[in-house]
């Protein structure tokens, strides 16, 4: 049996209040979720293994395990947030497609996150796709945001579960590619 290489990565959930960060984690992790963690010290830590991935160059099978840090009150950026960002290999930056101001907030958070982790990989999530139409002006701005950070993006719905797994897999692929 071919040996799998286990790789563990810390990733952070970024996004303004109410964009659906925790709901996305809840959808993705599903089996291990404790709200009390979040309310106690301001961080919810969850764990999830991604499907095994065979690297095209080496041919070896790699098994990514995400340790997901979801921060409460992330919009109130302080030194504590900086500590939480430290050491993250990647982040999922979540915008609410129905609220344009969340794009500006994610922009600021991403700048701060990348200051601390300049080599980390980002995937942009346009959440609440179940509520919007892709012809909206917000959608254009979302795409511009994705372009400006040169990130891949996924349109998701934490409510219906649409593309949520895909979102995390996408970040996993980005991380494995960057190795």
């Amino acid at each position, binding site marked *: 049996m071919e040996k799998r*290489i*286990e*790789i*563990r*990565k*810390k990733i952070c959930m970024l996004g303004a*209040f*109410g964009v659906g960060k925790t709901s996305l984690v809840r959808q993705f992790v599903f089996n*291990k979720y404790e709200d*009390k*963690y979040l309310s*106690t*010290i*301001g*961080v919810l*830590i*969850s*764990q999830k293994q991604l499907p095994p991935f065979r690297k095209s160059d080496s041919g070896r099978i790699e098994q990514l*395990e995400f*340790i997901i*840090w979801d921060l409460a*009150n992330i*919009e*109130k950026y302080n*030194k*504590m947030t900086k*500590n*939480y960002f*430290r*050491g*993250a*290999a990647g982040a999922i930056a979540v915008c609410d497609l*129905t*609220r*344009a101001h969340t794009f500006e907030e994610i*922009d600021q958070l991403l700048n701060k996150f990348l200051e601390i982790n300049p080599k980390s990989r980002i995937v942009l999530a346009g959440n609440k796709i179940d*509520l*919007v*139409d892709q*012809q*909206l*002006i917000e959608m*254009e701005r979302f795409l*511009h945001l994705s*372009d*400006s950070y040169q990130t891949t993006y996924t349109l998701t719905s934490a409510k219906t579960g649409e593309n949520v797994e895909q979102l995390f897999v996408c970040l996993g692929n980005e991380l494995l590619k960057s*190795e």
Partner: protein
Amino acid sequence: MQPVKEKSLVKLRELLFKEDLQKLKQLEDEVVHLKARLSDKEALLISLEPIIADLLERKIVNSRNEMAEVLAPIMSAAIRHQIVEAKEDVIDALYPIIGKTIRKSVAEAMKKLVDSVNQRIDRVFKGKLFARQVKSKITGVSRGELFLKEALPFQIEEIFVIHKATGLLIKHVSAVESTASVDENLISGMLTAIRDFVAESFKTDTKADLNEIKYGDLKVILEMGRYTYLAVVISGIEPDEFRENLEKLERRIHNRFYKVFRQFDGDINACQEIVKPIQKFILTYNSAPLKAVAHSPKPYLRYILITIFAILVIGFTAFKLTDFFAQRKLLKQVQSKLELIPELDLNTIEYKIDDEKLLVAGQVQSIQVKNQISSALQSIQGLNNVENQLTVHFSPPRKVQLEQNIHEKLMPFEQLPGFHVHGIVEGNHIIIEGEVPELQAKREIGFLMSEIQEAQVIINNLVVTKQQKSLPDSLQILQKELIFFNIDQIAVLPEQTAILDKLLKFSQDLENIQIKISGYSDDLADSTYNLQLSEQRARSVANYFRANNFPPPNMHIHFYGEAYPIATNKTETGRAKNRRVEIEIIQKR
């Protein structure tokens, strides 16, 4: 003759009374001596002491009760007086005596306890009695003490090696058999978060670090290294040299694996060998062999988590107590205000206070309710700011009413040739579908819809049937982008330049390219001013392209002022969308 006679008489007297005279003289001397002794009280006391002592002793022996009765009040009064007058002296005098007495008393009590324990142990554990007796004889430690050591032994339960920067678990070695769980990774993350939390909350000038967490018999010791730290879960009383040896273990691990740690990227396979020194360390202290190693936490890890939470709850509460009560008071006020709005279903919204700013999100059934909420909340004292992020989700009756409203607005168009339009309401969206002959008509209809106050989002899906004819057949729009401007400003915002750069990059490899730049404004000023403003905005964009070597002859500038809004000018959000420049990349065929 007379003197001779007298002499003889004296001589005769001397002969007859010599002995008596001597005795008399001796008696006189003794009387003088006795008088002298009686006048010298000290000397008299010395003389009488043995006699009186003897007499008293006899008296006490013969009349004990009578003596006690007589002396008790005198002695008590004297002792009381002495204690009051010279308390410190009395204490000093009694201290060594009492100390010795207590020590003696405690020692006797302990001896009795140990004897009692020994007896009980002998009764209960007869099978192990002999072995313990032998061990006791050899080591010189009592059987009772040996039993206590056996009952409460020191034990290393777990050792976690955690990457300091990321909080990722590098290795977990468990000393006892356990069931598989995912908690070990969460514990590593939480411990790291807690270390950061404590360091940030209670930081001092020194480079202090959290180094110990206690819960009942369990203790988590954190030994910091350069790249990693060890979290060691122990039970019982740690031996004196334990911390020192733990530090040595950390150094040993660092010396052997520092290159791996320095480049640690989450590949836990690279750290497999780390398990050996840890196992060896555990075996040094644990008498029982290791039953299971790695990837296997136990139920009591849950207690560690509970401990961690308990510590944090206490810390957090102490830290934020004032804020907490103030926020709770404000939240109660918010709730009571919201409860006064009859049409509002509180289950559909959520709210929280952050730095005296209230964020409200969720869904309400009408704009009126949303506005009522805003007014109600702004009347609360102590709330500096209210951010109303509520969206409107129309109730069925309101939806019908709204669709009727849309229908009335669209009716004039439906009668025109080439127009097939209708509007529907979905959630808080108004969706316009159908066909119109020109782009201008599409925009007009969009503008009309934006006048419906209850419409939060308008999706204009109208298809322009003759759109292709608005451009000559020889032209084709390849790309279209929008950039936005601040109120009354013409400068391209730095964050918007990425869009312009993208268009430049897109066009540079293409032939026969033209750029159409169209400027617009909101309706805050008069129309003449707005027209000039929109022109200047369009020219700002053109200047940017020119500065980036795009040939001016291929740029076409248009400006429309406040005409053709893409969103309502009645709200700031809408006006922000209208302050724009549209850029189209057009290719000549």
